[in-house]
C-alpha cells in the first residue's frame, strides 16, 4: 500500500516540478510582433458567432438582432448579454475563451488597439462597402479611430443637454435663459436661488451638474483638452482648469460635492418617484435617453431643455457611445464584421424605429423621443418618420433640443490610455470639488498618473 502511495506521489511531485520549470522557463522568450497590419475581411459570413456585451434587451435591441439574424442566414449567433468589463475582457483573452465580437465603450477602444488585443476594421468596412466618413458623425468616428485606423463599429450617440424642471423654475420667477452655461456667474446665482436644504442636507438642487458622470462635457465645453493627437494625456493643460472652477462654484453654492453626491445617489432615477417628479432638481445635465425614462410620467413633470453652451456661447456636447470591436484572437472575424455592420446598418435602425413605434402604440399618449444612433442619416430618417408632436410642448421642445445639438458633438480624442484619462479626470474633479486640492494641483496629479500609464505602454 505504501508503495502505491509512493509511486503516485512521486508522479505528482515530478509533474509539479516540471510545470514549475516550464512556467519559469517561458518567461524569458523573445517578443513577438503585435500583428497590427490591417487584416482583410470576407463579406461572406458563415459558421458560428459568439458575441458579448450587446445588452440592449429592449424593443430596439431585439428588432435589430432579428434583422441582423435575417441578414446572416447561415450564422448561429450566441449572445452573452452581460455588460462589458475590463477585467472580464482580459481574463477571457488570457483564458482563450475570447468572443468573436465585443461591444464596449468607445473610449476603451484605442487602449485595446494599442495593446494589440483587437484588430483594425478598415478591411471590414471596405468589404461591406460602408464608408465610415459618410456614415457616422465626425466625433463618433474619431472616438474609435487611432493611429489612422478605425478599430470599432460605433453605435449610439446620446448627447447630454440640460433638462429643466419648469414647474420649479416658474415658481421661482426664473426662465430658461437663466440656465446659460456660457455665463457661469449667472448660472451659479440661479442654482443658489433654486437650491433648498433641510437640516443641512440638500432637499432640492438648483442645478445638478452631474460632475463625475459628465466630466468631459464640463472640461471640453470650456475649451479644455484631454489628449494630444498621439493620444498622450494633457490633463495639466491650463485650459482644463476653467471647467473645474465652474463646477466647484456650482456645487459649493448647493451644499458641496459630498452632500450633493449622497443626495443624488438616493434618487429614484428610473422610478415613479424620480427627481423631476419629486422636484428634487430644478435642472440637471442628462443624456438623451433620460427623456425616455421621463416620458411615462408626462403628467407628473413639466420639463424643458436648453443645450450646454461653451464659453463662446455656442451649443456644445460631448458623449461617448459604444462600439463593436473584434478581438485579435476572434475565431470568426468575418461573421463578427458582418454581424456588427448589419446591426448598425440603416435598415437595422429602421427596423428598430418601427419596433419602437409599435411598442408605443400599446400605451395611449406615449411619446416617441427618437433614436440617437450615431449616424446622421438614420437619426434624421427616424425623426421625420416617427417623432411627431406629442401634445406636450415641453417634451417636444426637449426632444428637439437634443436633435439640435447632436451634430455639434466633439470627440474626446482617442487615446490608448483613454480609460485612465477618464478616471484620472474624474478623480481630479472630485478632489478639487471636495476642496482637497486646487484644480491645478488635482489636474497635475491626474496628469502624472495618466502619463505614467502612457509611458508604461508596451513600445512597438
Amino acid at each position: 500500500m505504501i508503495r502505491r502511495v509512493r509511486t503516485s506521489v512521486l508522479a505528482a511531485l515530478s509533474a509539479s516540478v516540471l510545470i514549475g520549470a516550464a512556467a519559469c522557463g517561458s518567461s524569458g522568450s523573445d517578443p513577438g510582433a503585435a500583428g497590427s497590419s490591417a487584416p482583410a475581411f470576407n463579406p461572406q459570413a458563415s459558421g458560428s458567432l459568439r458575441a458579448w456585451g450587446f445588452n440592449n434587451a429592449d424593443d430596439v435591441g431585439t428588432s435589430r438582432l432579428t434583422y441582423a439574424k435575417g441578414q446572416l442566414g447561415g450564422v448561429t449567433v450566441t449572445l452573452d448579454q452581460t455588460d462589458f468589463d475590463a477585467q472580464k475582457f482580459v481574463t477571457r483573452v488570457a483564458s482563450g475563451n475570447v468572443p468573436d465580437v465585443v461591444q464596449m465603450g468607445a473610449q476603451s477602444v484605442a487602449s485595446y488597439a494599442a495593446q494589440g488585443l483587437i484588430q483594425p476594421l478598415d478591411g471590414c468596412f471596405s468589404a461591406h462597402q460602408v464608408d465610415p466618413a459618410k456614415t457616422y458623425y465626425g466625433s463618433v468616428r474619431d472616438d474609435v479611430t487611432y493611429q489612422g485606423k478605425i478599430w470599432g463599429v460605433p453605435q449610439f450617440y446620446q448627447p447630454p443637454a440640460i433638462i429643466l424642471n419648469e414647474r420649479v423654475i416658474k415658481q421661482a420667477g426664473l426662465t430658461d435663459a437663466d440656465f446659460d452655461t456660457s455665463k457661469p456667474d449667472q448660472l451659479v446665482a440661479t442654482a443658489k436661488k433654486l437650491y433648498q436644504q433641510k437640516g443641512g442636507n440638500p432637499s432640492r438642487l438648483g442645478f445638478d451638474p452631474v460632475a463625475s458622470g459628465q466630466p468631459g462635457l464640463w472640461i471640453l465645453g470650456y475649451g479644455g483638452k484631454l489628449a494630444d493627437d498621439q493620444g498622450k494625456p494633457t490633463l495639466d493643460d491650463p485650459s482644463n482648469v476653467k471647467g473645474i472652477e465652474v463646477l466647484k462654484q456650482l456645487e459649493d453654492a448647493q451644499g458641496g460635492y459630498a452632500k450633493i453626491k449622497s443626495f443624488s445617489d438616493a434618487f429614484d432615477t428610473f422610478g415613479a418617484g424620480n427627481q423631476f417628479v419629486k422636484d428634487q432638481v430644478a435642472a440637471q445635465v442628462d443624456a438623451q435617453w433620460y427623456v425616455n425614462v421621463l416620458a411615462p410620467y408626462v403628467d407628473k413633470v413639466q420639463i424643458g431643455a436648453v443645450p450646454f453652451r461653451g464659453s463662446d456661447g455656442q451649443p456644445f456636447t460631448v458623449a461617448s457611445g459604444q462600439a463593436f470591436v473584434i478581438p485579435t484572437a476572434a475565431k470568426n472575424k468575418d461573421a463578427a464584421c458582418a454581424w456588427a455592420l448589419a446591426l448598425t446598418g440603416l435598415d437595422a435602425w429602421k427596423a428598430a424605429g418601427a419596433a419602437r413605434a409599435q411598442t408605443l402604440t400599446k400605451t395611449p399618449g406615449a411619446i416617441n423621443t427618437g433614436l440617437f444612433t450615431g449616424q446622421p442619416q438614420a437619426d434624421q430618417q427616424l425623426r421625420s418618420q416617427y417623432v411627431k408632436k406629442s401634445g406636450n410642448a415641453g417634451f417636444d421642445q426637449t426632444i428637439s433640443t437634443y436633435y439640435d445639438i447632436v451634430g455639434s458633438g466633439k470627440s474626446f480624442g482617442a487615446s490608448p490610455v483613454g480609460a485612465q484619462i477618464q478616471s484620472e479626470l474624474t478623480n481630479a474633479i472630485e478632489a478639487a470639488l471636495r476642496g482637497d486640492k486646487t484644480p491645478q494641483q488635482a489636474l497635475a496629479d491626474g496628469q502624472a498618473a495618466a502619463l505614467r500609464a502612457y509611458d508604461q505602454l508596451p513600445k512597438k
Partner: protein
Amino acid sequence: MSSIVRPAGRTAAAAPAGAQLTGPVVTTTVRSGRRGPRPVGSTVARVLLTLLLVGFACLFVYPFAWLIAASLKPRAEVFDNALIPKTFSPANYVEVWQQLPLLNWSVNSVIIALAAAVLVAISSSLVAYGFAFFRFPGRRLLFGLVLATMMLPGAVTMVPQYLIWKYLGALGTWFPLFGANLFGSAFYIFLQRQFFLGLPRELFEAARVDGAGYLTQFTRIALPLSVPSFVIILLFEFQASWNNFTGALIYLNGNDVKDYTAPLGIAYAMNTFNPSNGGHGDYQYVMVASLLVTLPMLVLFAFGQRYFIEGLATTGRKG
C-alpha cells in the same frame, strides 16, 4: 503600569521557532472556576454588565435587522432605514430569482466549497500525521516552514499562481478555487497535528503489533479519533470558500454569469443595479441576495458553533 507577572521575554526569544507550539492540545478544557478573573458577583453589577453587553449586541445585530427589513421593501424605500417596512414587498423574494441566477450561484458555491473543504481536510490530516508520528531528518525545519507560510501574504503569490493555472489550462474552470487544497494548508496542518499529538500512543503501538501498516493506522485509528478537529477543518474551509470573493473574481469573472459563485454574483448584482453604471438602483434585490448568501453561513454556525469557537481558540494558543 505595575505588573504582577514579570514579562519574561528572554526565555521565549531563546526558544527555537515552533517550540511553544507543542503546548496544550485542542481538547484541553479547563474546568471553569479555577482560571480567569472571577465573574462579577453582585446582582447590580451583573445587571449593569448585562445591559452593556445587550447594547453591544444591538450594534452587532442592527445591520442584520436592517438588511432583513430592506430586503422586504420596494425600491423607493430601501434607503429609508425603517426597521418595519412601510410597504411590504415580499415579491422581492420571488422576483430576485428571475433577476439573478441565484440558484446557479448557490449550487456552484456549494460544490466548490465542499470540494475545497473535503480536499483540504484529507490532505492536511495526511501531512499532520506525518509531522506528528514520524521522525525524519529536517522535520523541525519543515514544520517551521509550514508555520511560516501562514504569515505569507496571499497577494504575493496571486500573480504567479494565476499564471500556473493558466499554463495548466485551468483558467475559467473551478479548479483554481480548490486545486491548491490538494496539498494541505498550514493552519489546518497545525491544528490537526496538535490533535494527533494528544492521542494515546498505545493505540498505535497495539495496532502495529497486530500488523497494521502506517496507512492503516492512519485510516483506522488516527482519522476516526480526530473527527472533532476534522470537522473544524471542514467547517472553517467551507466558510472560507463560500466567502471567497477575490478568487472568484480572478478566475471566474470571464465566465458566463451562471458560472459565478455566490459572492461574485452579489458583486455582479451590485454592479448591474448601480445607478452610477446605468443600473436602475434595484437595491432591494441586492439586499435579498445578500441575505440569502448569508443565511447558509448562519445555519452552518448554528450547527457548528462549538467547532468554530474551538478552532479559533487553538489559533490563539499557538501564540
